[in-house]
Each structure stands twice: as structure tokens, then as C-alpha cells.
């Protein structure tokens, strides 16, 4: 048991550093999509919700698990769709360097 916990804690520690490293240099215009995208990613709680509903023995567990799956699905699906909608706006628009180009996005 102790070993397993330690293994999880190791994963936790390493992931904290990865999470911080990844975000360190993000232009402010992408803050909103980034927030929204990571919002979708924590929707992975859907997997947890499926597991608790899938091992429910009592009616209470079933009801709670059922609600959890609904909420988690909302989080995942809504999160990805909304992020995609935001990012759709950026398509075909090159990250303009300081130079003024005559290229006009359609």
C-alpha cells in the first residue's frame, strides 16, 4: 500500500514540474484558450465517474455515479467544443512578426 502511494506521489511531483514548465512562455492572447483547453482536460474525471458508476452496489452510489457521469461529460464535451470554437478564430492567421506584411487573411 505504502509503495503504491509513494509511486502516485512520484507521478504527482513530476507532473507538477511538467505543468509549470509547459506554461512558462505563453503569449497573453492565448491565455483564454489555454484556460479553456485545460478546463476540458480535467474533464478526464469522466473516467473516474465511469469507474464509480460501474462499481456501484447501492442505489445511492448509482444515483451519485450517474450524476457524476453527466456532469463530467458536460465538462469534457463542452470544454473541447468551446476551446475549438475560440481557436477556430486563429486559423490561417500567421503569428505576425513585428514586420508589416501585406498579406491579408481572408
Amino acid at each position, binding site marked *: 500500500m505504502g509503495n*503504491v502511494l509513494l509511486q*502516485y506521489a512520484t*507521478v*504527482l511531483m513530476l*507532473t507538477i514540474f*511538467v*505543468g509549470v514548465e*509547459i*506554461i512558462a512562455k505563453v*503569449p*497573453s492572447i*492565448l*491565455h*483564454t*484558450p*489555454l*484556460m479553456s*483547453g*485545460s*478546463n*476540458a*482536460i*480535467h*474533464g*478526464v*474525471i469522466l*473516467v*473516474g*465517474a*465511469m*469507474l*464509480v*458508476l*460501474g*462499481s*456501484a*452496489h447501492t442505489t*445511492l452510489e448509482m444515483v*451519485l455515479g*450517474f450524476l*457524476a*457521469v*453527466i*456532469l463530467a*461529460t458536460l*465538462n*469534457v*464535451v*463542452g470544454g473541447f*467544443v*468551446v476551446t*475549438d*470554437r*475560440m*481557436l477556430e*478564430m*486563429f486559423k490561417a492567421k500567421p*503569428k505576425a512578426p513585428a514586420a*508589416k506584411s501585406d498579406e*491579408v487573411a481572408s
Partner: protein
Amino acid sequence: MSRGTLIDLLYLVSATTFIVALKGLGSPKRARLGNAIAAVGMLIAVVATFFKQVDGHSLYHLGLMIVAMVIGVVVAVPTARYVRMTAMPQLVAIFNGVGGGAASLVSITEFVHIHSTHPATYVTLEVLLGVLIGTVSFSGSAIAYAKLQELMTGRPVTYPGQQIINGVLGAAGLVLIVIILASGQTALLWVLLALSFVLGIAFVLPIGGADVPVLISLLNAFTGLAVAASGFTLGSNLLIVAGTLVGASGILLTRLMSKAMGRSLSNVLFSAFGSVITASGASGADARPVRSGSPVDAGVLLSFASRVVIIPGYGLAVAQAQHVLRELAEQLEAKGIEVFYAIHPVAGRMPGHMNVLLAEANVPYEQLKELDEANSELQTADVALVVGANDTVNPAAQDDKNSPIYGMPIIHADQAENVLFLKRSMRPGFAGIENELLYSPKTTLIFGDAKDTLTKIVAAVKAN
């Protein structure tokens, strides 16, 4: 390879896609791809879970599970697709809130489950933390949504001893967790649940509307942590990795956002920013003279300028005037006038919000100038056209040490030769602070709905 190993392997793939996706979301070119990659990874994880075995049996209630998912999809897709772009911050708040709620429910269910199959004392810390954090995120997001959707006042709600009461609530939650762990009294879980719910509300109430986006980012990180806690409970590396990623990056992102507003995170969270309606030096503002003009005046002024800097704000989006604004810019360019858009990092209601709104109206990316570049352009600009912005051009942020927004970087509209200020009324901006720029002799105010006014200006420009 056993089925269990294969599923774990797929979970590993899924966790990897999340890391790759977050990395992609940090660059404009790969952001959309990154989001798609994460969605694929999520799909892999969900499909794999259907085949997972728990305690030696396949998952029960698969039918019920699918029904729940269908309900979720049917509600989420149209909501996410068709809600107006201006309402995006609320939408993110609500999707975050339900995620927090799901994490909390998973922890509660697991608690009930453990309780029915193990001795009463077998309760672990992470279950309780999952309930606490997930519920705070849920109720906090609900209040954030209500504030942004203007179901309740956007101003900070304050009462005497607020910080102390919140501190006591938070401490009580932690003490309760210790008591549950020590005594194994499982009925106290429901008390913890109720307490967390109240704590989430109490925590968000004093935060003003202008700061709510920063708060949503923080609550987003909270949900991530709650998911990571569930990962410990369920023994799932995938949940631990994904939750921690979001938690760690979310907290950093929150700090970056408050920095973009020139404030510290604790200032955002605890100062009840914006509860004072007028800043110092603006007493008796109602009686002060302002210069106002007609759209035709504005059209003439713009037609004879050689450099125009447009400073858009949230009011532009509310009036749905992005398209007319672009039309105006095109008219001016056709006359050989240089046109730029000056984008404040927090223009709109979230960092980057304004870029999205302008991109929606097909404004060329190259015309958007970020803060520093915009300010150097403004020194030589003939006209600064402020549309629906207010706080982001308020000189008080630079000159007035007593102003609540002192220190926030601003766009120096006041450095342009002339300032055209399109406003609905003399009402102060989102942060509730009086703006000296309105009274400057350089400034001409044009009252009215932004879309309406801009349409008239376009006509006037055409006529000249």
C-alpha cells in the same frame, strides 16, 4: 498482454496526449491541433474505460452510463456551439463548475462505496480533499457564472468581517477533515460537503466582475487538483497526471493573468477590488463639463487623419460592432490612412478575449498591436478611437496612487493628438472607476450604441 495492461497502456497514451496538447495550446500555430489531440486522447481513455475490470468484474450499469453520457453530449454541444462569443467567459466558468461537481461526486461516491465495503475507519485524506476542493470549485464557479451573466451584481459583495469569516470557514473545513479521519464518523462527510459549498460561495462573493476571469482560472486549477485527488482515491495514474497538469499550469496561468493586470493574485482575491465607485479626485464628476460630438464630426476627424489607432473594449463586443468597426477601418485604409488596433492584454473580459472577437470579424492579425507596440504607435497617432473600452485607457492607473487600478499597464490613448471616445453613457467602466480621460480637452465623446454610432461614422467617412 493482459486486458488490464493494455488499458493501462492506453491510459498512458492518453496522459501523453494531454501533455502534448497543453504544450500546443501555448503557441498560436499549434493551439487548435493541440486541442484536437487532447480530445482524441480523451476519447481513447473513455473507450478503454468501458472495457476495464474493477475488483474482478466488468463495469456494471453500462446502459445507464451511456444514457448519462448522451444526456451530457446533448446538453453540452449546442450550448458550447451557439452561445455568443461575448458570453464565453461564463461558459468556461460553467463547464469548469460541472467538472468540479463531478470530481466531488466521484469522491463522495467512492467514500460511500468504501464505507459499505470496509470498516468505518477506512477513510483516506484524498477522498475528503477531493470533496472539499471539488465542491468549492463547483459553487464558486456557479457564483462566477451568475456575476458574469449579470444574474447578480458584478460588484464585490462585502460585509463586515468577511475575510475573517472566510478564514474561519476554510479552517473549519480542514479541522473537519482531521476529525473525520481521526474518528471515522462518516456522517460528518455531509457536513463537510455543505461547508465546502458555502465556502465556495463566500470566497467568490467579494471578487468584482472585472476580476472574475482570473478567479475562473484559479477555480479551473482547483478542479484539476480535485481530479488529482480522485486519482489517488481510485488508483488512477491518468487522473493524477491530468489533474495535476491542470492544477499546476492553472495556478501559474492565474498568476500570469493577474500580472497582465498589474496586480498580485492576493490583491485580486482579497481586496474586494472595485467596491468603491469613484476613485479619488473625481468627486462631483456629474457636474464636470465634457465635450461631446456627433458621428459626423468623428467621421470628418478620422477622414483627415493619417494615423488612427483603434482601442476596442468589451463594450464593442456587447454591441456586436466588430464587423462595422472592421468596415470603418477598411474605409479609412482605402483613403490611405494607417490603421492599427491596440489590444490591451485584458481587453474584453479575459486575456485574449478581444483577439478572438476581432478575429471573428476577420480583422487581419497583423493590424493587432500588443500593449508596448501600441503605445509607441500612439505617440505619433492623430486619432485614438476608443470603442467600448474604459479602464484600459484610464490614466489614473499611471498617475493616481490612490486609484484601485494604480499600476495596471494601460494603453496611452491620451498621447494621441485627438481622442474619440465612443460611449453609451457617462457610466464608469467595468471596474467601476471614474476615468479622467473623458474630461481631457483632447477628448470628444460620442454617445450612443457603438454599432449605431460606428455605422453613422462609416457613412460620414464615405461622404468625405
